């Protein structure tokens, strides 16, 4: 295996890990900042105002 193909082989799981982290981050932010469900909204209310999410 040449050095270059090793580097490519190593970067495939790296890219998968980066994608996974990115999507999980977006999902967390959707729930905490974007979702309009009443229970979530009430719990997150003060934080959303303080963090300037468009809230209601």
């Amino acid at each position, binding site marked *: 295996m040449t050095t270059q193909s090793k580097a490519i082989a190593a970067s495939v799981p790296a890219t998968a890990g980066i994608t996974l*982290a990115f999507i999980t*981050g977006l*999902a967390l*932010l959707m729930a905490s900042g974007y979702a309009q469900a009443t229970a979530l909204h009430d719990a997150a209310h*003060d934080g959303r*105002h*303080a*963090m*300037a999410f*468009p809230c209601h």
Partner: protein
Amino acid sequence: MAKNLFVSAICAGIAAGLLASVLQFTFVIPLLLEGELYETGARVHFGADGSPQSDRGAPSLGGDWARHSMTVAFNIVTYTGYGLLLAAMISFAALKGITTSARQGLIWGLCGYIAVQLAPAFGLPPELPGTIAAEVGQRQLWWISTILASAVGLGLIAFGRSYLPVAGVILMAIPHLLGAPHLDTFFGVAPPELAAEFAALSLGAAAAGWVMLGYVVAATLKRLES
């Protein structure tokens, strides 16, 4: 690889969330509670006698620990979410040969603050409770578009070759030239000074949180790699 990203994002999310919470409870939440007095009508600023005067002074934080602990939890979850995005982007840059030291992490955090807090606030300032504003869907659309345009714009400014940084500046300006959704009428019931203080202090607290986030993400990623 994925584990390192998650560990660094969680460490950074806790550190930034706690710092932001301390700053919010010291500076921001008291003004938020004071704003609620006007939202509910417990205090009136623009009275029926035409007098635009009212007493200054925030109510105490009170004993509503359920509410306040939810705020801290919200901060940690939100900063962990942003931390995951930041860790993913720093690692993606590393694949492209751009290494990030802990101190450069401060700049990543500052750019995150500009993209996610400052640029959207340029069109939609942080709102006191009770502020009447344009329909929430329109504001969310403008808000998310501005964050995306600002993040891509900052990336082009930081890493773009040739004229790409100029394109980055233009991209950052476009949402503001188009304009954020606003109503044709002002409805504010709270004193303008209170709303201004709230907006400025919110942005300041967020700046501190984001710089902490960028530093801890970069520092822990560096440590876990070696």
